């Protein structure tokens, strides 16, 4: 459905996107991660046909969005800017975009979506008077107005309160599972991506560093990992220093009072456990470590930083 092949975009000498290749299948929720300035937004713009690739291609249903209005009609977009006219009311904004997309039964659709987003009472208020969160919600229902097959979302829950963030997350999951809508999620919120995305790509300095299912990334992060939960959380940093200096340890991450340890070999964990106990640090729990997306992301980003 979305096929990005050796996509490169240069701005002068600067390569904003460098040879990116990935695919997104129908009904998939795909997370696109990367630090600021890594090329995330440029990739989105290339897919949406707002920029021309220097080389390579980004095809939606086999065609280029820039050349085919019918392809653009199948895509719902929420970019960094909400894409709303502050001097128009919520209804007028939706009505305008609905007409551009030729949405049938527009009035009823607008009313249903405003009701769904909890904005029905503000229907006739100018968007300029809305809070950031309300504008984001309105931007999201604007993107859904024409029942798109693909949703391209750039930080959809930025600026939303936790309840609204949950609403957005639930909505994305529902859209994907029940309506088979494909979601391309550009986000900094690793927790959000971890909760809702099936596959992720991590881009840095214009290059895709990894692209795989979350499960595969967690299991193929290189080395076996164990998690030590200490009974005295105040000694976590001390324990981390001790383990880092130990043989058989590749990396130590402290996380919510526990330690996630990447091992060079599986057999090292009893030795480390004994070492901690020996120093008077009681281990309350020892379990097989499952690396979070944050760990994986930071690993990749820092590794590439140190390589450059």
């Amino acid at each position, binding site marked *: 459905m979305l096929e990005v092949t050796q996509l490169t975009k240069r701005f002068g000498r600067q390569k904003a996107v460098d040879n990116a290749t990935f695919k997104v299948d129908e009904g998939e929720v795909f997370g696109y991660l990367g630090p600021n300035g890594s090329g995330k937004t440029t990739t989105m713009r290339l897919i949406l046909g707002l920029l021309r690739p220097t080389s390579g291609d980004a095809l939606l249903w086999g065609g280029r969005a820039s050349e085919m209005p019918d392809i653009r009609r199948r895509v719902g977009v929420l970019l960094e800017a909400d*894409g709303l006219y502050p001097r128009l009311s919520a209804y007028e904004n939706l009505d305008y975009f609905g007409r551009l997309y030729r949405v049938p039964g527009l009035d009823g659709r607008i009313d249903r979506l405003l009701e769904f987003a909890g904005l029905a009472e503000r229907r006739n208020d100018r968007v300029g008077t809305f809070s950031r969160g309300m504008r984001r919600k309105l931007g999201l229902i604007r993107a859904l107005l024409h029942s798109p097959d693909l949703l391209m979302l750039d930080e959809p829950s930025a600026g939303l309160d936790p309840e609204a963030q949950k609403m957005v997350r639930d909505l994305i999951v529902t859209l994907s599972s029940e309506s088979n809508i494909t979601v391309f999620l550009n986000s900094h919120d690793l927790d959000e991506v971890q909760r809702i995305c099936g596959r992720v790509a991590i881009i840095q300095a214009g290059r895709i560093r990894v692209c795989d299912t979350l499960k595969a990334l967690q299991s193929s992060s290189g080395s076996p990992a164990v998690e030590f939960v200490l009974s005295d959380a105040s000694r976590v940093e001390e324990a981390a220093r001790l383990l880092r200096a130990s043989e058989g340890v590749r990396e130590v991450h402290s996380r919510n009072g526990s330690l996630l340890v990447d091992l060079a070999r599986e057999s090292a964990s009893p030795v480390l456990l004994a070492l901690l106990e020996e120093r008077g640090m009681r281990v309350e729990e020892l379990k097989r470590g499952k690396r979070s997306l944050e760990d994986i992301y930071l690993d990749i980003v820092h590794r590439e930083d140190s390589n450059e």
Partner: protein
Amino acid sequence: MSEARTVFRKELRELAFSRGTVASGVLFAVVFGAMYSLRITSNMAATLDVSLGSLLFFLTTLLGVFMGYSFTAQVFLREKTDGVVETLLCSPASLRGLWLGKTLAVTVFAHVLAAASGVLTALVTSARLGTVAVPNVSVIAYLACVVPLVIACLVGALGFAQLLLGMKENRVIGLALFIPIFAGLYGLGYSSTGTFVVTWVHVGLVALGAAIVLAVLAWASRFLDRERIVTTLP
């Protein structure tokens, strides 16, 4: 064309419901109308229809150009500064449709205000002279049909530039284009009111010039480019 109509309706509505825009438009229409009207009553050497004709010829063009210039920034440039244009470019609407709808909306709005100023001027002149002042048919035709063409030329060209160029370039181009036109029209109008007789030849020449410029702009609208617009966002 339906997308141009949708854009036209939205932009016209936004202009008409913007209190600041309407207030400044009406203010200029009244001030310029009254100023020119005073000029005609003190120049009684020419016949009334000649004086009124030349006055309306320059006044409505001047006001149309002035208002077209000020409203163009609201309709084209503001969408870039607000960041809405990127979302709009992702819609199925064509760039030509967007440009056309916006150009038409500004043209209609500016023309209505310029024409209202012309009518007001005729009324004030009539009241001051104690007689009914009616311009000749060529002037009425000019006001109704050619002034919108002239406004559309300026708005179309400025809108085109505002979509494709950055903020700095737009400021320079806007002033470089607007100041000479405005100053030229103002000076011509002020010096020739009462002596310049508006004929069908004048009307035809201006209409032809405007039509040629518009045709060039319509052709050039194929060069509007999404990448150029996105990469010149402020």
